[in-house]
């Protein structure tokens, strides 16, 4: 195997192994930990793809900063909107009876 290809092949194998791992753990009843492991595995997989396939490790630092900027902005959306949901005492009113929602056909 050519030297440049080795890391690519290894990454691919690792990705498939991680896929098997997350598919398998999903069937073990662990409560919220299921979602957490699923996401953790996804993060590892994503890092592998980004770092090896997308050459982030070898690439210019600017590229890493760009990727981070995207992630950071997303994190802001989740954090601050989440802060509202986490601290809101929502008093749900009864659901609207379907009859109060007049059927509309959208824009003509």
């Amino acid at each position, binding site marked *: 195997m050519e030297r440049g290809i080795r890391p690519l092949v290894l990454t691919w194998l690792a990705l498939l192994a991680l896929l098997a791992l997350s598919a398998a753990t999903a069937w073990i009843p662990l409560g919220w930990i299921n979602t957490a492991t699923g996401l953790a595995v996804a993060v590892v997989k994503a890092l592998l793809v980004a770092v090896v396939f997308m050459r982030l490790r070898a690439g210019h630092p600017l590229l890493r900063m760009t990727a981070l900027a995207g992630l950071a902005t997303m994190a802001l959306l989740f954090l601050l909107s989440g802060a509202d949901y986490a601290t809101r005492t*929502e*008093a*749900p009113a*009864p659901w*609207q009876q379907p009859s109060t929602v007049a059927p509309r056909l959208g824009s003509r």
Partner: protein
Amino acid sequence: MSVPFHLLPADGAQSATRLDSLALCLLLLTGAVALILLVMMVVFCVRYRAASPANRAGAREKDLGLEVAWTLIPLLLFLGLYAWGAVDYAALYKPDPAATPVFVVAKQWMWKAEHRNGRREVGELHLPLGRPVRLVLTSQDVIHSFFVPDFRIKQDAVPGRYTSIGFTPSKAGEYRLYCAEFCGTEHAMMTGKIVVQPPSEFARWLAEGPRQPGMAQRGFALFRRYGCSGCHAAGSSVHAPDLTNLLGRRVHLQDGRELVADEAYVRDAILVPRKDVVAGYEAIMPSFAGQIGEEDLLAIIEYIRESGHDERAERP
């Protein structure tokens, strides 16, 4: 005919005065800053106009000390303003146990209100002078906003949930009520009148008018009709908690949480019973979501509240 004209809204509620002082303070501060800036700009523009022979020696391109100063000083002032605004804001939303709840339901394009004894009104709201009031708002269709400039309060009425805001009317009289969130064609016509009366007059007003069964009374009837009493009545064979005196009581939940039962909790208990299961009971209570209308729900809650206030209240 003289054109009515006021520059400032009247002070119709206790919080209004506080709020005006915040506004005044901000006005003075920002006014002073704006004025200083304006004066400096004008002075510089005149003194250093191209034709002026003024001395320009020693002009600097930067001055770290100065710049840090005019970064930090506004920052500190801002923190103060922030704190003031935040404290007053929190006060509007802190539930006051002594406050009289008034239920307001908005719909395109009118305001409906219901008092605790069941007296209802449309497009008007009567309130007692000097008593803390807590509005509980919801909407049947789109978002509306309950706005009384003379009280300096505004709160959106959001469909699907309750929002609330508290205040204390401080002056008898009539005030304008507006809808402040755009809600469709007649948004501008969705106005109303707030009538603040001395408590005795208000009590008289409450008592007269179209007599409907009191809210709690109606709630009691509904409590039977929806079959709640089947499980929750004292003599029921189903193992379900006693609801007497529930509001304000500390409740222990199955998952270990502990909370104080308020309206929100009771609503949840009725609509999404599986969300907060009471410790020691099975989650067998069916959800009544989509079955109990929103006014009925308020009535049932009122009934549960009353049953606590008054032990003589009819017990199922």
